[in-house]
């Protein structure tokens, strides 16, 4: 793909995206392997829309989203899918995502045999995030990953994100600026469109 080289996995070039009309942009940035970009901004600034544009789920009005050839993407929405009954174990969910249980935190190991509809909201949320992180995806997009997490599990997630040895690139969208500052290498503030080192 033209314009994506030198270890760059994703490049946004003057991107303006939205649905019926533009919601976010213009934005330009490059994301390299191993970098973690936190996207912050007040409600309505287009944080989730930016992820959707990268994940082919929003309309691009101007500019470009350039991906490295063969880029594999894992993309999680704000809320995990919840059905009235889900006779799927944690292990089966991870297998469906193509995720490994190797290196999973102890808290997850303990729930892998249980049905996911019998997990608490926080347990399911952590499992859901692990299902994206523990895949062979080059780029992981997480929208509001701290939803449903109590302070203890939020800390566990911070520990997972900061101690994992992986060359995956991450884009995390959150309203929780402290969480982003503790987990990301760079921060994008959508109020002014600037990328800064965290």
């Amino acid at each position: 793909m033209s314009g994506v080289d030198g270890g760059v996995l994703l490049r946004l070039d003057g991107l303006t995206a939205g649905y019926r009309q533009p919601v976010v942009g213009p934005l330009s940035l490059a994301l390299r392997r191993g970098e973690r970009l936190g996207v912050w901004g007040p409600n309505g600034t287009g944080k989730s829309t930016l992820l959707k544009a990268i994940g082919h789920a929003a309309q691009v009005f101007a500019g470009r989203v350039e991906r490295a050839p063969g880029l594999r993407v894992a993309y999680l929405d704000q809320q995990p899918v919840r059905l009235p009954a889900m006779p799927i174990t944690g292990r089966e969910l991870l297998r469906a995502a193509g995720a490994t249980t190797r290196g999973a935190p102890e808290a997850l190991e303990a729930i892998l045999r249980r049905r996911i509809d019998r997990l608490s909201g926080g347990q399911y949320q952590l499992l859901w995030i692990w299902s994206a992180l523990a895949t062979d995806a080059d780029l992981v997009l997480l929208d509001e990953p701290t939803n449903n997490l109590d302070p203890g599990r939020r800390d566990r997630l911070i520990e997972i994100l900061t101690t994992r040895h992986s060359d995956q690139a991450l884009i995390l969208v959150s309203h929780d600026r402290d969480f982003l500052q503790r987990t990301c290498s760079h921060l994008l503030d959508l109020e002014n469109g600037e990328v800064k080192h965290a």
Partner: protein
Amino acid sequence: MLDPWLASLSDPLFRLPLLVGLLLAALLPVIGALLMLRDEWLAALGLAHVAAASALLGNALGLPTLIGGTAGALAGGALKTRFEARGNVAYAFMILVGWSATLLIGANTELGERLAHALVEGQLYFAGVSELIAALALIGAALWILPRILPQLLRSRFFPRFEQANALPAWRWHLRMDLLAAASLAIGTLSVGLMGAFALVLIPAWVTFQIAPSWRWTLIGSGLVGVTSYLAAFALALQLDQPFGPMMVAVLVGIAAIMTLLRSWPGSPSAS
């Protein structure tokens, strides 16, 4: 006490219908589990209605009911994939269109009226070699298709952004599932009747969704509940000289009621 039951199951006259129904009773609940996973359980009723209507239409045009019914249901399944009609609304329209067409064609042709009645009640006892071949072909197709699309269907349900974000040709596995469901419901409707096929798709899957410890056991359990209840219904219908379709539905509804009672019993895991 079991002797008359076993005798009815081994009667040579009913051996072929028994076998046809047994194959369908093992497969339809598994299809039901997948439809329930996709929140499309109404598919069974929608496709069954379309199959019944197209069987009648085909009959009026001189085609065998098995060909007309299956072709109509397959067309319904393909159109649903083509227009990306997910969820129960698409199937609700199939029910209405199928119901209307079945009764209108039935009312305007002499043979159609009898056939429409038979499709609603079920005509398993008249199942012959062609129904057996159709059921075997369906099982063969399911054994070939399901292992290939099951992982994708699970991933698609729980990780709905994945396919789009990676520009995968998701329509391929959704189409295969829609066509397999359509063919299953068509052959099921033409053999065990419209409501019998619907009940075999819905109730075993509904029961196992409540109690199965895993997805693997949901699929196995659905098939087991289907086969067990089918054998009971077949024997009861013969012993009590009752039509098969309504008996099949009655047995399955009874199983669902027993399970609901057990789960609401004080001290049961779900009641506490």
